[in-house]
Structures are given as structure tokens and as C-alpha cells.
């Protein structure tokens, strides 16, 4: 019913191509997040799926039907926009019911649908107010409600939380997740915020310059990023990147860097290892403070900067001649200038080809 299939789609404006040959398959009931920096084409893709933009090539299928030429209203979608999309001079109730009334739906039907959406989104008390009398969070809930009453198979969200302050964003994020659990409808969600992506998605499609860099579960995106871009985009603070070479040493492989070597015995190579320049990526949260153990790689350094963040503290030290960050518990006694030992497990690290950025 709500499966979405984008097949070899190209979208551009005049001479500028946003993407050239993009394909993505979204299963019925799945929550997929399109994540990426500004200008990567995620909103364009969403608008193309919605039918608000024409595609230059390729096909779009929703619910088993070819909707490439269909108007948005015929695609079985509901859409939630970033802001300012409510009809300003109508009450909340009218905003929710206007589309249905225009389509000629029977009054009883309209009432039930509006009531159901209002209940799900806690809008019952606000039904007679106008958008200007609502807070940002309430307005976005009405926007979601408007998509809800359409009984759509697919819900499209275009950065709906970007204009809200941090507190509201957190609250509404949870509401959207609850909504997905209740409705089990397909949801396609565009954002540049990795926290939203990680918490909401069944799968994340990380995009850059019109190309999907990786589409995988949040767990895989986080732990096994497909290239340096995805690795750098997800995770805060950023993943540590150490320059060096993959080299054969006897029976095994090592990663040689400016000040030593890291044994790669435990590293899960994707294909056959080969000698090449590479980057070793280790997340700050995967670097532990203290003496190493046989399975882990250890190193030492001095503390250059300490950034206390309350629940945790970011510690800057050195490794392979470059700065390295590690996350330690907020209660840790580490101080500026201390000599510390730290270690990490290569099995949880990522190795990338230095020139292509692809995961090895």
C-alpha cells in the first residue's frame, strides 16, 4: 500500500542538475530519513516524490502505482512542511477539514477524521484557534494533523522541526515517533539534524551532492559508515581520522602511521585487504581511558584541552602526531597537562581508502 519506489530519477532546473540517476526503495510502513547538509538534494527528492516537482527522467511508484505524472493530490500522500504552511485566516478545525470539504467528503466522515487527528495530536483544545494564536510546536502539530486527515499511505516530512527551539524539537520528535508506532504508515523524513535521523529512522539515507552515500539502519550508519563523509557527518564530536598506510606485515596486516603501527588482525575488512594509503577512523566514545588490554591498541599522550560538558567530558590528547579526542565520564579526574594512557578496539574502528574515502 505504501511502498515507495524511486527509479533512476533525474531532477534539475535548467542547466543545473540536482541529481542525475537516483534510485531508492522504501518498504511499506518503513520510516526512512533523508539526511544530509544543505544543498544535497534531500528536499528536492522529497518534493519530487510528492509531485510538487517534475522529474526529468525516471519513474516514481507509490503503493504499486506509477505516479510519475500524477498530481500530488492523486499520489496518496500527506505532507508536512517546515513552517508557515497553515492557512492563516482559518481556525485549526478549518485548516484540518478544508481539503476534505473541497473534495466533497460527507460531513460525518470529515468530523470523524478531524476528531481522530485532533485526539492523536492533542489538538482538541485548540480547534477553534487561529494559527497566529498558536505556538510553533502547536502549529507543527496542526500541520501534521492536516496530513493525517487525508488517510494517506505515505507521509512526507520536509524538515518539520528545523524552525523550533531545541526543547520543542525534542518533544515533537517523540510525538512523531509515537505517531509512526500507532499508524505504521510509510514515512519519509528530510532533515539535516543527525539526532532526529538516528532516533526516528528505520533506515537513514545519507546524501551529499545529489548522491546517496549510504542507506542503512542507524546502527550500521553509526558503526560502519560507508565512507569518510558519512563517518564525519554522523557522531558528535567528529570521528578521529588518523592518516597512514595499510601494509602487510608477515601474515597479517597493519596500519602504519607517523609514530607507529596498529595491528589490524581484528579489523573486519569488507573485501581483500591491499596495501594502500588509508585513514583510520575511531570515534571519541570508543576510546577508553586507561591501560590497554590484549585485544585493544594502546597509546599514551598528554592532555592538551579539557571540555567539560556535564554528563561527560571531551579530552584532547595526541596520537600519531595529531590531535585525538576521547570521551570520558563527567566525573573523571583528568586535568590539563596530565599524562594519560588510552586505548581502543580496532574491531569497532573504520578504515577508509585515503583517496576515494570508501570503507575498506
Amino acid at each position: 500500500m505504501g511502498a515507495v519506489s524511486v527509479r533512476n530519477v533525474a531532477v534539475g532546473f535548467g542547466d543545473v542538475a540536482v541529481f542525475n540517476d537516483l534510485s531508492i526503495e522504501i518498504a511499506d510502513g518503513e520510516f526512512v530519513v533523508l539526511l544530509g547538509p544543505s544543498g544535497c538534494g534531500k528536499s528536492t527528492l522529497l518534493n519530487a516524490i510528492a509531485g510538487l516537482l517534475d522529474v526529468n527522467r525516471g519513474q516514481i511508484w507509490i503503493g504499486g502505482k506509477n505516479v510519475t505524472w500524477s498530481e500530488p493530490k492523486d499520489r496518496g500522500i500527506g505532507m508536512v512542511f517546515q513552517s508557515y504552511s497553515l492557512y492563516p485566516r482559518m481556525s485549526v478545525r478549518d485548516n484540518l477539514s478544508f481539503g476534505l470539504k473541497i473534495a466533497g467528503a460527507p460531513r460525518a466522515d470529515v468530523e470523524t477524521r478531524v476528531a481522530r487527528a485532533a485526539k492523536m495530536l492533542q489538538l482538541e483544545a485548540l480547534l477553534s484557534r487561529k494559527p497566529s494564536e498558536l505556538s510553533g510546536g502547536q502549529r507543527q502539530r496542526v500541520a501534521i494533523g492536516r496530513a493525517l486527515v487525508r488517510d494517506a499511505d505515505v507521509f512526507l516530512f520536509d524538515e518539520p522541526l528545523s524552525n523550533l527551539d531545541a526543547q520543542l524539537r525534542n518533544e515533537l520528535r517523540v510525538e512523531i515517533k509515537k505517531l509512526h508506532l500507532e499508524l505504521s504508515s510509510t514515512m519519509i523524513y528530510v532533515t539535516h539534524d543527525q539526532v532526529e535521523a538516528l532516533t526516528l529512522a528505520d533506515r537513514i539515507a545519507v546524501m551529499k551532492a545529489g548522491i546517496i552515500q549510504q542507506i542503512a539502519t542507524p546502527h550500521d550508519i553509526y558503526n560502519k559508515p560507508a565512507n569518510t563523509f558519512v563517518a564525519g557527518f554522523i557522531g558528535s564530536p567528529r570521528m578521529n581520522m588518523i592518516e597512514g598506510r595499510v601494509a602487510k606485515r608477515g601474515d597479517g596486516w597493519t596500519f602504519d602511521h607517523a609514530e607507529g603501527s596498529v595491528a589490524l588482525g581484528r579489523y573486519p575488512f569488507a573485501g581483500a585487504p591491499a596495501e594502500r594509503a588509508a585513514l583510520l577512523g575511531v570515534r571519541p566514545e570508543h576510546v577508553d581511558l586507561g591501560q590497554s588490554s590484549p585485544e585493544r591498541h594502546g597509546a599514551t599522550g598528554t592532555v592538551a584541552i579539557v571540555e567539560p560538558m556535564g554528563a561527560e567530558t571531551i579530552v584532547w590528547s595526541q596520537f600519531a602526531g595529531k590531535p585525538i579526542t576521547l570521551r570520558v565520564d563527567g566525573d573523571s579526574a583528568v586535568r590539563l597537562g596530565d599524562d594519560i594512557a588510552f586505548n581502543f578496539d580496532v574491531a569497532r574502528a573504520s578504515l577508509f581508502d585515503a583517496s576515494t574515502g570508501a570503507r575498506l
Partner: protein
Amino acid sequence: MVALSVSRSASPARDRAAALVKWRRNWPAALSLLPAAIIVAVIYLGTMLWTVMLSFTSSKTLPSFEFVGWAQYNRLFNTERFTASAWHILIFGVLFVAFCLVLGFLLAVLIDQKIRFESAFRTIYLYPFSMSFIVTGLIWQWLLHPELGLEKAVRDLGFTSFSFNWIVDNDKVVYTLVIAAVWQASGLVMALMLAGLRGVDAEIWKAARVDAIPTWRVYVSIILPMITPMIVAATVLLAVGVARLYDLVVAMTKGGPGISSEMPAKFIMDNFFERANVGLGSAAATVQLVAVIVALAPWVYLEHLRPRRRSR
């Protein structure tokens, strides 16, 4: 007790000193506002009061101070030329504002449809507004000339029984003024409405498209309520033009035929200068003043005096 009295006598001095400092710093500003102040006091208030005062005198060619109470007003409301003019300006005003709003809105909506040559169309609709009312009046007087104008042109095209002699028809001449004025001013309304339409967020259009709302319905039910401030602004501007209506009448019909298109402003000017009836003219001017104030009052109240709710 002592402390209290000391502070009480010290503060007036301090206040005076503070006021002096402010005055010294702002005196150039106050000085530069002097011309404006003089204009406001002498012209906008002074002459207005003088005119009202003159309406109660028996002034003829020159002002006199012989007060005659309401005599001029009595005379005024018994002068057919004046009562007719009041009636004419009402008809003119209503038709003019209505047609301008409708036509201006229509043009704005059409241009808003992402058409090509938008610049050219806009230039064509707005150019009449750049010309004087005298020019407009003369063009349309010529166009609507009963023998040589539009009537003849249409007849030459084959519609031999076509007649369009409204400009010499006692009952219809006011409509010719409306036609000319709408031609002149619709472009202005279009420009204002277009600015309003362009201010509507693109996301509202997207949402309406997803909601399956037909384009015309979007304009009527969603956009029109949103641009109400623009409509009000346009109406006010047009209404001001109506009150000032003089040049067009002089150029196009001279109030004729007879007094069929007489207008209050022309009546007043004629009485001031040609007919040497300053008192009567002043009375008419005062009536005009009162009418404008009465018409303005609700708008001023709505816009400026009513406590506003904070929106968005």
C-alpha cells in the same frame, strides 16, 4: 524628617537640570522641525479653521466678518448644483472603488500565474497612472466623442446601429468619468495587490496543492483573507482620490452636460473664484471636510487606536 525634606527640594532642581540637558542636545532637531510645525499649525490647522469660520459669514468676493449663522448652509443644501454633486460623487465613488478593486485584483492574480512577459504587462497596466488627470480626461473626452470618437469607429467596423453617446447623456455621463478613472487607477491597485500576493509564503501553495484545492479556491478562500490589509490600503488610497476629484471633471466634462456631472470639488472651486461666493464655497468645503472625517474615523480607530492583539 530632615532627610526627606532635603531630598524633596533637591529633586526639582535636578529635574530642571536634566530637562535643560535634553533641550540643549535636541535643539537642532527641534529647530529643524520648525518649518514642519509651522506648516502643520498654520496651514493644516489654521486654514482649515478659517475655512470653517468663513462658512458662517456672508463673504462674497472677499472675506467678510459678518456672521450669518447657518444661512450659507441653508443656501447650500437648497442649491441643486450642490446636492446633485453630492449624489454624483457618491455614485462615482462607489463604482470607481469597486471596479478598481475588482479589476486590479484580477490583473494581479493573472500576472501571478507565472506568465512570461510579466514586465511588459505590468508596464502596460500601470502607465496610465503616471499621467495627469487632465491628460486622462482629455484622452477619454476625445475617445468618447459622440460623432468622431469610439461610436464612429465601431460603426465603421460594421455595427451601424452602435451608439455610445454617454458623455452627452445627462444620466450616463458620470459613468464615463468612472471609465476614465478606472483606466487610470486600476494599475495602482494591481501593483499593490501583486505585492500582497507575492508576500504569500510558497509553502501555503504547496500545502494547498497536496490538499487538492483548486487554484481559484485558493485565491478566494485562503489568499484573499490574507491580503485584506492591502485591500484596505488600496481602498483608502482610492477613496482619497475620489474626495479630491477635480482635474478629471474639468478636463473631461466640465461638470456637464448642464450639471449632470458636477462634483463637490468643482462646485467649491467655482464658487471661490468664478462665482465669487466665498461663504457658500466655504460651507461646501466644510461639508466636504466633515464627510471625510466621518468616513476616516472608523479606519483610523481600527488601525491606530484599538488595542492590538500581538499577532505571530
